[in-house]
């Protein structure tokens, strides 16, 4: 390896070393920075961006912490643990530390309160925004998951994101050695009906090792033991801490008592500790209760029932790669033994890709959060440039003071140290304010409703984040203070001390620096603005996507008729399709009789919800093998009318399309195909019959012959940003009633609050014991699918707005200042007969040049960075020329205005006044 010039990392680290005394830097600073550079490279290779984040955070804290400690120990040798009789000889003690400067610094900052306040506010904005996002990144991405040895935990899926069947899981459990323990869970709904209002609970059915894999322990009572999973064991349940507090007020007597879940009496075994979070809980949807899942029950032994989410702890000595190899071998065996359910459509085995739990939980939000962190980083840089410019301008005013101090014997290092102390002190004050801003902003996230980001609910500003803020503020202070400080220290003493003389060389140098700060500010602000513009634009497009329904005046209500349990707790009402269909008909009839209701219909699960709405199957035209995968939705008559879907051809379902259930029960898996009336969506119609002649044609699935009676415009079932899909709508009766889920949509011209109350009454008039979740509007449902993009675009827009303000004020103040500096020159020119117009042109021309330079750098930067936004935007290119042009024009206009006003002031001045003032 040959010696290369120090990397950026090394140089940054060296500037951090300013925290250490100069003597330390001189003797081993270079060595330390070099070692850091190599660590930095190692870390990048080993752990990528995340590793670097951790390294930098640790290094910043350590260098500043230990550096100040070293200074302290040297300053007060009598208190230091390790005495050195020599080290203090060169300088008197008060010259060594930062502390003795403090009084001087406070005096000097208080002398120019407007300047200080301005700088503090700007730093507070930058540090506050950065701290806010950092606290989210820290909590969501960097903090280990709340389990013992979380790095050993892995999850896996079947193929891409599929759940496992129970036999799959049992095979893996029995035939692999890679896991020290292995568990799985599946969630469902249960109704709690023993006391008070009936309540819908979410339940996790878990296998025996679930709690031990996660290292959970009870707050009261006990968790499951092996005996609880035996066939015929007493029905038991473990309750989540949240539900315990909410429903039973934390009463320990709950343990051992009986509750009624889905009509069955179940004994409460114990309550989990408050800090327990299941993997579901990490995503903000903690389950309410947990019940044992007996995997040996005969009704679960279907390989086509994909249900379980597994979680395992790697055995000692096993690595992700070795475990994966073992799983791959097993997957291939399973594909041979069970070709129907363990091979994909192309005949390849379904593998079980292992993913570390941490990645499975937060992997999808890592990129957006790092992009946001990058965006606030840009904002902080803009703030630094802005404050550095203020300092440079002030440096000119303080030239004489500094010259006087150096004439009296202060060395260059001493003056740099003095000025740096000032800037760091200012930055720390700004940082304190910024921490306050961060605390408030994180509270505001609750308002934004940042769903979709796991672990978001427990983001707090704690000591870790505060340490980061302190380190960041210090670094900020060094960053914006260093260049102006070095600049000031170069002042030519003689020239500066001469009354009224302009220090031409230093002045020109300083102007150049100021100009480059302005260019940097414009460039950075433009990059942020373009990013925000793209996201905002994409968000508008997302909102204007046609959902395929007319959501105004539609209210939705979710019900569940009996248990989705394949017979194991099907003891209550609604154990047959006939009972469910009867209930559905009675309820819809009651609702349709309401005065303001125009239409009411039902399906299994309404569009724009989470989770399964329907089932997918292969469909092909009769007599053809050209099949595509389509979603099957069972719907009642008047369902499409209630949603306000758009009929393209034919008709919607009518009551006459519904059929009575077959006496044997049975579901979608019947052996022989049945002919049903179907409405298909436009995409499916165009896929098979591009020429448009669709009505009366037939499609085949394994269980049905779909006789097409109508075509409907595409409905975006899975959210506005979901790609186009193929849908077929079947009569609700009989097959929709196979499933217990029932969602009702009602179109009504009445007040939605009254309607919601009336709907619950309608349910209870048909069945007084049925729990009803609060009805909600279709508009709420649709906007629920875009909260995450809305959150990101709002946040970026807020950063960009701040950046915009900072850049504009930076340009304005810089121009104002340079015009002020040139007042005398401009006055002379005017007196000598220069045209005001040409003076204006001269001043504005310089501003135009700087703006143009900044814009071109910014456009280049935005172009180079555009790819990081790829996964954020919808329906728009990340190099969308319209956005680039519009945002550049906006910034250019504001920059021009910021130049024009000072220029007009300068040109409008009375030359006599100006010259007299000298």
């Amino acid at each position, binding site marked *: 390896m040959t010696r290369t010039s120090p990397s950026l990392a090394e140089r940054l680290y060296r500037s951090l070393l300013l925290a250490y005394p100069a003597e*330390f830097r001189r*003797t*081993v600073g270079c*060595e330390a920075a070099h070692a850091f550079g190599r*660590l930095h490279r190692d870390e990048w290779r080993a752990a990528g961006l995340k590793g670097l984040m951790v390294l930098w955070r640790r290094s910043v804290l350590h260098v500043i912490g230990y550096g100040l400690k070293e200074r302290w120990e040297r300053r007060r040798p009598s208190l230091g643990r390790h005495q050195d009789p020599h080290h203090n000889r060169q300088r008197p003690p008060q010259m060594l530390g930062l502390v003795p400067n403090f009084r001087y610094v406070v005096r000097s900052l208080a002398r120019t309160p407007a300047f200080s306040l301005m700088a503090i506010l700007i730093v507070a904005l930058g540090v506050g925004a950065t701290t806010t996002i950092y606290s989210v990144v820290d909590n969501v991405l960097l903090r280990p998951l709340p389990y013992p040895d979380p790095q050993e935990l892995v999850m896996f899926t079947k193929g891409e994101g599929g759940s496992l069947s129970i036999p799959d899981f049992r095979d893996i459990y029995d035939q692999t050695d890679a896991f020290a323990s292995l568990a799985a869970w599946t969630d469902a709904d249960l109704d709690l009906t023993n006391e008070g209002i009936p309540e819908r609970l979410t339940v996790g059915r878990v296998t025996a090792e679930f709690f031990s894999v996660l290292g959970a322990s009870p707050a009261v009572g006990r968790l499951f033991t092996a005996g609880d999973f035996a066939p015929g064991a007493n029905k038991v349940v473990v309750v989540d801490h949240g539900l315990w507090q909410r429903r039973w007020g934390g009463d320990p007597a709950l343990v051992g008592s009986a509750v009624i879940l889905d009509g069955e009496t179940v004994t409460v075994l114990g309550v989990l500790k408050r800090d327990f979070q299941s993997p579901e809980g990490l995503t903000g949807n903690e389950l309410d209760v947990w019940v044992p899942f007996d995997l040996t029950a005969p009704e679960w032994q279907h390989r086509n029932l994909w249900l379980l989410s597994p979680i395992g702890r790697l055995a000692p000595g096993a690595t992700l790669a070795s475990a994966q190899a073992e799983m791959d071998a097993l997957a291939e065996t399973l594909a041979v033994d069970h070709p129907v359910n363990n091979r994909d459509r192309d005949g390849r085995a379904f593998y079980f890709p292992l993913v570390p739990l941490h990645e499975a939980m937060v992997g999808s939000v890592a990129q957006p959060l790092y992009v946001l962190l990058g965006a606030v980083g840009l904002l902080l840089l803009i703030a630094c440039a802005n404050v550095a410019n203020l300092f440079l301008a002030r440096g000119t005013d303080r030239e004489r003071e500094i010259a006087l101090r150096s004439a009296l014997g202060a060395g260059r290092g001493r003056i740099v140290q003095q000025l740096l102390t000032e800037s760091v002190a200012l930055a720390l004050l700004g940082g304190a304010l910024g921490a306050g801003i961060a605390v408030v902003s994180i509270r505001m996230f609750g308002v934004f409703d940042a769903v979709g980001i796991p672990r978001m609910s427990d983001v707090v500003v704690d000591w870790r984040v505060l340490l980061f803020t302190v380190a960041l503020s210090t670094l900020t202070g060094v960053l914006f203070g260093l260049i102006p400080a070095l600049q000031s220290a170069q002042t030519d003493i003689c020239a500066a001390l001469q009354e009224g003389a302009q220090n031409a060389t230093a002045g020109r140098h300083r102007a150049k620096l100021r100009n480059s700060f302005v260019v940097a500010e414009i460039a950075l602000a433009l990059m942020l603005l373009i990013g925000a513009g793209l996201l905002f634009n994409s968000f508008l497009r997302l909102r204007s996507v046609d959902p395929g329904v007319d959501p105004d005046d539609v209210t939705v209500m979710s019900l569940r008729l009996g248990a989705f349990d394949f017979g194991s707790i099907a003891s209550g009402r609604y154990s047959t399709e006939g009972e469910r269909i009867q209930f559905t008909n009675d309820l819809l009839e009651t609702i349709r009789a309401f005065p303001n209701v125009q239409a009411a219909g039902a399906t299994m699960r309404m569009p724009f919800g989470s989770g399964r709405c329907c089932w997918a199957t292969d469909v092909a035209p009769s007599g053809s093998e050209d099949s595509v995968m389509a979603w099957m939705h069972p719907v009642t008559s008047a369902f499409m009318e209630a949603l306000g879907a758009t009929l393209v051809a034919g008709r919607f379902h009518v009551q006459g399309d519904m059929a009575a259930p077959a006496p044997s029960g049975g579901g979608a898996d019947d052996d022989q195909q049945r002919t049903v009336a179907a409405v298909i969506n436009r995409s499916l119609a165009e896929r098979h019959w591009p020429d448009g002649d669709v009505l009366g044609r037939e499609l085949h699935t394994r269980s049905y012959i779909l006789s097409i009676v109508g075509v409907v415009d595409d409905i975006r079932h899975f959210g506005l940003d979901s790609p186009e899909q193929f849908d077929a709508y079947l009569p609700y009766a009989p097959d929709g009633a196979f499933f217990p889920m029932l969602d009702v949509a009602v179109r009504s011209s009445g007040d939605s609050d009254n309607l919601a109350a009336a709907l619950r009454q309608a349910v209870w008039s048909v069945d007084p014991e049925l729990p009803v979740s609060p009805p909600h509007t279709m508009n709420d449902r649709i906007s629920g699918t875009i909260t995450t993009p809305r959150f990101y675009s709002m946040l970026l827009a807020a950063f960009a707005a701040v950046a915009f303000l900072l850049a504009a004020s930076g340009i304005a103040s810089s121009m104002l200042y340079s015009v002020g500096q040139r007042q005398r020159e401009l006055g002379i020119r005017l007196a000598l007969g220069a045209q005001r117009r040409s003076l204006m042109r001269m001043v504005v021309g310089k501003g135009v040049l700087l703006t143009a330079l900044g814009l071109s750098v910014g456009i280049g930067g935005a172009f180079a960075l555009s790819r990081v936004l790829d996964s954020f935007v919808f329906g728009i290119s990340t190099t969308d020329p319209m956005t680039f042009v519009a945002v550049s024009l906006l910034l250019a206009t504001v920059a021009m205005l910021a130049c024009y006003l000072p220029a007009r002031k300068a040109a409008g001045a009375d030359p006599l006044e100006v010259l007299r003032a000298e």
Partner: protein
Amino acid sequence: MEYAGSPLNPRDYLILLSLSEGPRHGYGLLKDVARLTDNEVRFDPANLYRSLKRMIKQGLVSETAAPEPNSDEDERRRYYAVTEAGAGRVQAEAVRLDRLTRVARERRLIPDSEAPA
């Protein structure tokens, strides 16, 4: 050596332990300490040099020439080695720790199957 015989602070112990294998430069020390402790202890470079400077003053460590200048770069680096005093201290500390570990094992604080899998 103002504290001869007293326990050595854990960082110094790790540094001396690493250097007992032979002279190293700063980066080498950082990597070796991380390796010795399964990545649990990761010195910040500046803090490592801070410790080294102090240990030089205490006479536990000395600067030395590169053992085998085989590359342009490493030749320029400062190498550090254990002094005799340092070797004595690290040995004393190791014996002390060993004694304490034996007590812990007798009291069944360390599982018998402690061997790494």
